[in-house]
Structures are given as C-alpha cells and as structure tokens.
C-alpha cells in the first residue's frame, strides 16, 4: 500500500472518531523559492493529513487568479521541475504524511514521463494530480508507468460529470476521487449552497469504491464542514495561498487550527 491508501484506510477505520481528512495545496517556490520543505514540515506539525505540492506552470487553465499569480511568482523565483526534486531530496527524513504533486502535463512531458515518475518514487511522492491528462490517454499510455513507481493517479469529477463517467473514473482510480465542488476554476470562494450539497449527496450515494475528497472553494471551518459531511475529506488551495500571501509562513498553524475548530 502507499501512504495515500494507508492514510485513507486509517481514517475509515476510525470513521466516527477521526477527524475528516484535511489536505492543503500550495505552489512550490512560493512565496520564496526555498520555502517548499519548511511549509511541508509546518503543515505536518499543524495536523494536516496530506499535501498537494503544486508544480508551477505558465498556463494553468483550470486555475483562478490566486493560483495563477502564485505560479507566476514561483516561476519568476526560478522554480523548475529539477529544482523541486532537489528540494524534496531529503523530505522523507522529516515529513511522513502523503505527498502528491499537482501540476499540468506539459512540464512532465518535457521532463520525460518515466523519468518524472522515477524521481517521484525516489523522493517519496505518493501520487499525482494532473488535471489535463485525460482518462483515456492515462489508461492507454501512462497507467503502467505510474503503477511501476507506485504512484496513485487522482482524477477529477465535477457537477457536470455523468454517472457513467464517474463509474469509469472510479474503476480507473485506486486512491481517491477528487470531487470538484462546482463548475468553476480554482479560487471561487463564494461559499456553498444547496446545489453543492445535492451534488455531494448524489455522488456519495453512488457507493463508489474510492473515497471522495472535495476540492475548490473550501476556505474556512464552515465550508470544510459542509464539504466533508458526506465525504472523506477536503482540499484547501487558494485560501491557503492567500494566507501565505498575507501572513507568510508564520500564519500556517493558526490557519490550519481555524479550519479544525467548531
């Protein structure tokens, strides 16, 4: 089993007592080029269950202004795929929670998909979220390589995804399914209404084999609670990056504590 699967079955085992899984996204190389590992350490110390490390890309199609800006700054700071792997070389000496790299497919294609996966395994990455690598291409060309390096590939579903396709994605997944909360790019923080609730309920009632983790639009204790009432956990991205922008690394533990309260 890999760390993601372990973490999720641990959560499931203690279902009623355990807190829901909290995952944080941040862009590697932001706010400063060398912040990556320190942010990871602080997130683990603050009680975060899992982290998505954003590999910055010049043209992040699925992201709103907050993550666009953090990606641009990270690239300006000099972040590259190679530098990220160097930064993560010893990360497993101090960080034990599951780590996922989230990024767009082109930088990985240039690095070489197999080389990239090999490096991920070497530094202790557990999974990948690549929004623009579609299901069909993954199955046909990349599934074997990901498996060889024990990397879990995470697919997204949205309120518009048909039940049929959700089932196909469930079959192709072996970690969790990323439930995108609304039809929107990242960083839309208006809060949830009954549309989201209905959608979370609908997918939760499909009895999929994979746990559901909600992302996009979670910003505080209230939205975290709404997102996780029927699912296993939630991911916070833009709201966390805004905290970093405002308060720097010193704001991390307070922010995480504020999500867990209530």
């Amino acid at each position: 089993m890999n760390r993601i699967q372990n973490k999720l079955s641990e959560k499931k085992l203690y279902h009623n007592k355990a807190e829901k899984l909290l995952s944080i996204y941040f862009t590697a190389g932001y706010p400063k080029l060398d912040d990556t590992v320190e942010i990871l350490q602080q997130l683990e110390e603050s009680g975060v269950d899992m982290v998505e490390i954003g590999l910055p890309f010049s043209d992040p199609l699925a992201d709103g202004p907050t993550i666009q800006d953090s990606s641009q700054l990270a690239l300006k700071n000099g972040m590259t795929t190679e530098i990220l792997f160097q930064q993560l070389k010893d990360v497993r000496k101090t960080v034990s929670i599951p780590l996922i790299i989230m990024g767009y497919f082109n930088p990985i294609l240039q690095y070489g998909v197999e080389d990239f996966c090999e490096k991920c395994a070497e530094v202790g990455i557990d999974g990948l979220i690549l929004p623009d690598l579609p299901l069909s291409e993954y199955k046909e060309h990349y599934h074997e390589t990901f498996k060889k390096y024990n990397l879990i590939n995470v697919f997204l579903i949205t309120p518009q995804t048909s039940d049929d396709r959700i089932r196909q994605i469930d079959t192709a997944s072996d970690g969790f399914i990323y439930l995108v909360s609304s039809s929107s790019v990242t960083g839309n923080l208006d809060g949830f209404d009954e549309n989201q609730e209905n959608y979370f309920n609908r997918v939760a009632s499909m009895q999929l084999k994979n746990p559901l983790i909600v992302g996009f639009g979670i910003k505080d204790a209230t939205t975290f609670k709404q997102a996780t009432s029927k699912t296993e956990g939630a991911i916070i991205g833009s709201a966390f990056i805004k905290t970093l922008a405002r308060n720097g690394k010193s704001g991390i533990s307070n922010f995480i504590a504020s999500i867990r309260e209530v």
Partner: protein
Amino acid sequence: MNYNINEKGYYGDFGGAYIPEMLYPNVEELRQNYLKVMREESFQKEFRQLLKEYVGRPTPLYFAKRLSEKYKTKIYLKREDLCHTGAHKVNNTIGQILMAKRLGKTRIIAETGAGQHGVATATVCALMGLECIIFMGEVDIKRQAPNVARMKMLGAKVVPATSGSKTLKDATNEAIRDWINNPVDTHYIIGSVVGPHPYPDMVARFQSVISEEIKTQLREKENRKNPDFVVACVGGGSNAAGAFYHYLDNLEVGLIAVEAAGKGIDSGESAATSALGKVGIIHGSKTLLMQTADGQITEPYSISAGLDYPGVGPMHANLFTSGRGEFISITDDKAMKAGLELCKLEGIIPAIESSHALAIFETRKFKRDDVIVVNLSGRGDKDLDTFIRYFDL
C-alpha cells in the same frame, strides 16, 4: 499515409483532447455531434447560403499578372481578403455559430489576438442575436484599437485578459476558464485549427471551402484541378488548413506553410514554431509549441498579431514532421516589403499575415510554368497603422 484526422482525434502523433475534466462534457458533446450536425441537409443549406449571400463567396481566384511577370512563374491569389469582415476567419465563425445554435447554446465566447477573429465572431453573433463575449489580451487591446471598437459596435463585450503576457495565448486561457465557469449555456468559438479535438478538424472542415473553390476555379482558368503549389501563412493554421484541405493526400501538390520569423529565428523574437518548437501540450492539443526546456510555454513575437501564437495546429505539426508540408519562415522585414509590393503591382493591400505568404517569391525559386496559388487570407485595412509606422508613410 493519411494526412487527415483519425478516428481518435489525432493527425499522426498530434492532436487529442488534453483537457481538464471540467471541460469534458462540453468538448465531448461537440465531439459526438459535430459531424452529424455538419452532414444534416438543413445545416449545409444554411451554411452554404450564408457563405454565398452574407460572406460573398465564392471569393475570386485571381491571376496576378504583374506579380507573375516579376517572379517569372504563374501566380494566382485566392481572394479571402474579399470576404465580409476582411479575412477567412468568418468562414469558421459562420459554421460554428450554426453549430452552437443547433446545440442549443445561447452565449458565445471567443479569444482574439489581432481582433480579426473577434470581429468575425461578434459579426455572426449580431447576425444570430446571441450574447457575445470576446477575450483579448490587455496588450492587444491597446495595439488594435479599431478592431476593439468594431467588436463593441457589433454588440460584443470585450474582456481584457490581464494574466500572463496579456496577449493571444492568455486570451485563449481566459476563454477556456470562462467555459469552465459556464459549462451549460456557452459555446466557445475557437478561431483557428487549434485546441482540443474536435476543434482542429471542425475548423478545418469549415475552412475547407477555400480549397474546394480553388479546385473548381482552377479547372476553369487553367483546365486543371491541381496547382503545383499552394502557399499560405500559418498562425494557428486555419487559412492554411482550408487552402490545403482537398490537396492533403494529393502528393502532386506541394503544400507550403509560411510562419513568422519575427526579427529572425535566432533573435529570441520569433513565432516560427516549426523551427523553434518541441512536442508538447498547449490549449488542450498535443502539438509543436515554443517552450522552455522545463516545459513552460514561451512568448512568441511577430509584427503580425495574427501569427503571434506559440503553437501550430496538430494538422500542421504532422505536415511538418512527416515532411508532407514545406515550412518556411519569413521575417517582419521581408513580409512588410512583400505586402507593399503587392499594393504597387496589383493594387491590393494585403494583411500583414498574408504578406508573409507573399514573401515566398523572394525566398524560394519556382519554375516558369509552375502554377502557384497563394491564399490571400485577409486585407490590410486593420494593419494601416503598422504600415504607416513601418514605412514612415
């Protein structure tokens, strides 16, 4: 070898639909329906009628006598510059607006660089009474003020793209993000043979009327179906795709694609994707694009805003790597000179994009009895400011 698209949405190794799941329902709906809709008799009837009565097709195939004399060969110009709105772009927007209506969409979005595709989209939205939102880089809005005014007069809302480098690539990103945010009522009219499958194929089919007409017209004028060469400029590649379409598998016809070298291929300010690009993914398509070693997409440069795109459509990536197409790049200076030459020799003011194609005759030799068709993709009205500044007119 087949140079057209295969059933999986690829031209050789290029194409596909590398899109986030949020776009899947929309793109899939289009993929499942576009051929069916295009084959409907009522669609064809409406499309053909609008091309004839609204766009002004067929556009002439004009024998350029003085230009031919100068270069000692036989040059025909396919006059897409005479289309309504001034360029070939409208062939595609007419087709796509009819598609959008049949799919029940009520809101239209598009990206634009120079503003030609934006104007062509705003035009068909006015014609059909549909809401129209055009994304345009903040930098381009300043560079192309007359086209911004045209779009507004036609009732479109022009939204500045303020992310990234604030040009065509970023306008395209913003249009895609808008589509993610509006998945039900909106159709995205992409302006070239780029983007996820089925866009490259759909746009190529709408533009293929260009080579369809060339075939008939050439038979009348030269008593032959095939020219020896077809020449077209390539930004994303839609006018070239249309001019090449019915000759793709006819190896007797040379296909010459002209890219913008900007200030020179090695100057760092260029848009010559075939020379400078590597395989990668841009705007949902696996194709050739200009990028850093680390896979970040780089900014192109050309004096012509319509050729200022860091990728090419997957059809052209395949024509290039297979050797079926001959790819040539032309600098700003050569293109401007060729544009002015056409004014003086033939009384036609071409778009700067099209001027790149015309510069082929200073770059490459042809035989005296070769028959060459240059696709004159647009007229130069929109470029007057650039011509004035460049030649100090």
